């Protein structure tokens, strides 16, 4: 997840390094303890770093943004008009930006999401319905509708699966629409 953590990362590194130094000093008190002490330093150092990462995630939660973007093969005025004509906007309160693509051949759409929206709730993550996942799917759907007039689907096609097997497959493929870098 490309979330900007740079300031907290620095403080986290300092914290982990301090623990490492302190433990290493203790280990040097007795030569017979050196090897075991060094191993303990490694383990605790990793644990300290992990704790620092968790702390900084908690501290920064809600303050960073992630951008989901897609390029649509139509001029910005047409893309903007089509975007505004949609109903039931799943992007909610997210900030949306339209920009001509390099070369003027298309339009770039960027949706900025807070990390609350990216992470979603536990339930929405399980269902594959975090705001982030809904935005990604909406961007794909929008691009396809503008470029070729429809969003191609496989839902309802013949298979040799039972309805239960098909439900599992559907759950997997639903997520295969929403994951990815879009």
């Amino acid at each position, binding site marked *: 997840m490309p979330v900007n953590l740079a300031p907290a990362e620095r403080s986290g590194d300092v914290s982990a390094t301090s623990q490492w130094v302190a433990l290493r000093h203790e280990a040097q008190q007795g030569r017979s303890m050196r090897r075991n002490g060094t191993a303990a330093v490694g383990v605790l150092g990793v644990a300290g770093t992990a704790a620092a990462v968790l702390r900084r995630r908690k501290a920064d939660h809600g303050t960073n943004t992630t951008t989901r973007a897609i390029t649509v093969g139509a001029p910005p005025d047409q893309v903007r008009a089509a975007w505004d004509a949609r109903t039931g906007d799943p992007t909610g309160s997210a900030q949306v930006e339209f920009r001509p693509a390099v070369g003027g051949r298309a339009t770039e759409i960027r949706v900025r999401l807070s990390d609350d929206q990216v992470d979603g709730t536990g339930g929405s993550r399980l269902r594959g319905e975090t705001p982030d996942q809904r935005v990604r799917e909406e961007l794909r759907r929008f691009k396809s509708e503008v470029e070729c007039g429809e969003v191609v689907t496989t839902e309802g096609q013949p*298979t*040799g699966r039972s309805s239960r097997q098909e439900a599992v497959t559907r759950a997997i*493929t639903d997520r295969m629409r929403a994951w990815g870098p879009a």
Partner: protein
Amino acid sequence: MKALTWQGVNDLAIEDVDEPRLLNDQDAILRVRATATCGSDLHLIDGYIPGMRAGDVLGHEFLGEVVETGPGVERLSVGERVVVCSVVACGRCRFCREGLFSLCDNGNPHPAAAEAMWGYAPAGIFAYSHITGGYAGSHAEYVRVPFADQGCFPVPDGLDDDSAVYASDAVPTGWMGADNADIRAGDVVAVWGAGGVGQMAARAALLMGAERVVVIDRFAERLDQVESVIGAEPLDYTAVDVYEALLEMTAGRGPDRCIEAVGMEAHDHGAQYAYDRVKQALRLHTERGVSLRQAIRCCGKGGTVSVLGVFGGFLDKMPIGAAMNKGLTLRLGQQHGHRYIPMLLERMAAGDISTAHLTTHPLPLTDAVRGYEMFKDKEDGCVRAVFHP
């Protein structure tokens, strides 16, 4: 209706499934008249392409008659006999407009797994795992074709079903391999693989002006076809050292253009092949790349290696040093069939490209499980089994 479904690794079955219906406005429903086995299906059957689900209907190379069209279909009419490109492409995104149909942005309804594996998702492909869209395939009585105006091509009168079916995949794939190889008049071309795609690549190379084309394989019946139908020179890799043979044939220069039409389950003999088999069986890598490595090693300085064989994941011992230091050009890709099929159907109808000989085993769809066994094991000289529902 009856359909051939994938049930698991090396496990196929004929099942009763629902008939397809129109799901998008630009869909058409076809009654399948001919649907071919393809070497790339074996990668699915053998379990080397991820993303298959039990119950998936197989088949991506087919021809049929239009029985129903959606309200967004403008160019097709009911009753028309059409061959369908195995790639599903919208025809209107940036890549389609540039003729790169297998890279279509909108043809794959489930692109996320491909994006995770490959960075970006290519187009959809009929019945080629859920990574390329999870579309139901053509080994059935009826098939649904999305973006039907884009992917269906009317078949000229006089071209029979068992010949025209290869305009769906083998012929355009082979043509693209030769096109990507940038063949010039007087070139010596080596093709690895004498299956349908390799033979079509060899024929395309000759039509593009290559002076000599040699096709490498181990099956006598396929090598016979290379000589008698395609007009190229056969080379049996079990009888000669391929590198030495090509060196002698070109008086030390090596082939100017090499076309790899084998892919991730290449066969050979010797230590390198054993190494590949063990690593693939243990899933430590996904590709057996002996043909690709050999093509890179054998290719002459400044030459082109064009890769048509299907690769899906990770290849070990890639001879990047040979490619770099000989200044080779590597070209790869799934077929951009929409770009070539109309022209190729004309050439097939005119007799420039023969394909009827590939259908060594025409069978009813109900015999499709047996047909795939024969095709996989090359029993009874099977080059392609083609099913007629």
